[in-house]
């Protein structure tokens, strides 16, 4: 094995380990603790339907979560304790969204692969493109989750928007396979093109 091959193998191994660590880092029930910080035991019901919600999260909500305007206001108007609580809360809401998007996309792809396996219309090039977009999407989600853990959601708006854009591309690609994924499933996952 040449030195270059070994380096490439090591890079892939490191990336794999990083992904595994990130997935393990995702504590069970972390999403539910998002609002519980301030809202007590009743808070999880906000997230209770996360697995089965019916629409894509509005773009303005995502922009708001990942924007810095609110944090600037909190910095000016409130105590250090409140600022810390706010940062923690926003991070949890953002992480909940990221992992939700990650899981939904994984579900839609699993369903898509099961459906197209025996399809006569199967196109290897289209499938390869879809897999590449899917992997890019999941990698962006992992990168965003890591950045959120390390820094917090403010100033990550561009990365969040990139996740949204790739998500729409995956949705459009999945939809281009007629009958591959039932309409209601793409809707529930938010994987729909803007058209």
């Amino acid at each position, binding site marked *: 094995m040449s030195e270059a091959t070994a380096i490439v193998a090591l890079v892939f191994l490191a990336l794999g380990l990083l992904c595994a660590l990130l997935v393990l880092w995702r504590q069970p029930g972390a999403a539910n603790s998002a609002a519980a910080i301030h*809202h007590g035991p*009743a*808070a999880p019901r906000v997230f209770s339907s996360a697995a089965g919600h019916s*629409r894509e*999260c*509005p773009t303005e*909500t995502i922009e708001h979560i990942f924007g810095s305007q609110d944090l600037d206001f909190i910095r000016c108007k409130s105590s250090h304790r409140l600022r810390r609580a706010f940062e923690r809360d926003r991070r949890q809401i953002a992480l*909940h969204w990221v992992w939700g998007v990650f899981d939904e996309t994984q579900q839609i792809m699993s369903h898509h692969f099961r459906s197209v396996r025996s399809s006569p219309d199967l196109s290897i090039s289209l499938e390869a493109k879809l897999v590449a977009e899917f992997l890019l999407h999941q990698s962006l989600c992992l990168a965003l989750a890591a950045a959120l853990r390390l820094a917090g959601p403010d100033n990550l708006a561009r990365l969040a928007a990139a996740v949204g854009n790739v998500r729409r591309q995956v949705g459009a690609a999945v939809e281009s396979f007629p009958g591959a994924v039932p309409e209601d499933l793409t809707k529930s996952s938010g994987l729909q093109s803007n058209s």
Partner: protein
Amino acid sequence: MAATMFNALRLSTVEEAYADLRHRTLSKIQGNFARLIYLASTRDYNSARYFHSGLADRFSPEIAAKALELAHREVFRELVSASLENLAHELELYMRSTRENPADFFRAWQAVEPFRVVVPVDTHPTSAALFISNVSFALEVLRSNLKLPQDH
């Protein structure tokens, strides 16, 4: 074709009812937060159906319910998109409109958290979480700015 015409007619009727609601009722309520509370109060706790007697008389209970739901979603969407600063301002406007003692208002709102029940049905969980979180922080900021004592 008849069905399309019927749907178009229904849609225009809902739009008319919505315009009527905005003109006659919502325009007289100061601030989006107060409008949100009002619109949520027209929704039945048990059935989640909206009802407004005046609007139902002028149109029909179904059309009125659809117009109320539409208005509820629209006002909620505007408040979720609003910055925390604007939301705090809206909340302050609402608090003053209730003429309640601020200390009592904050005590009740932080203990009972009535803002949890004003979220429209089928709102995306992330939007609902963001709204609830923002209202909680807006309350805390207003309370600290008014120099009110903490209950905790």
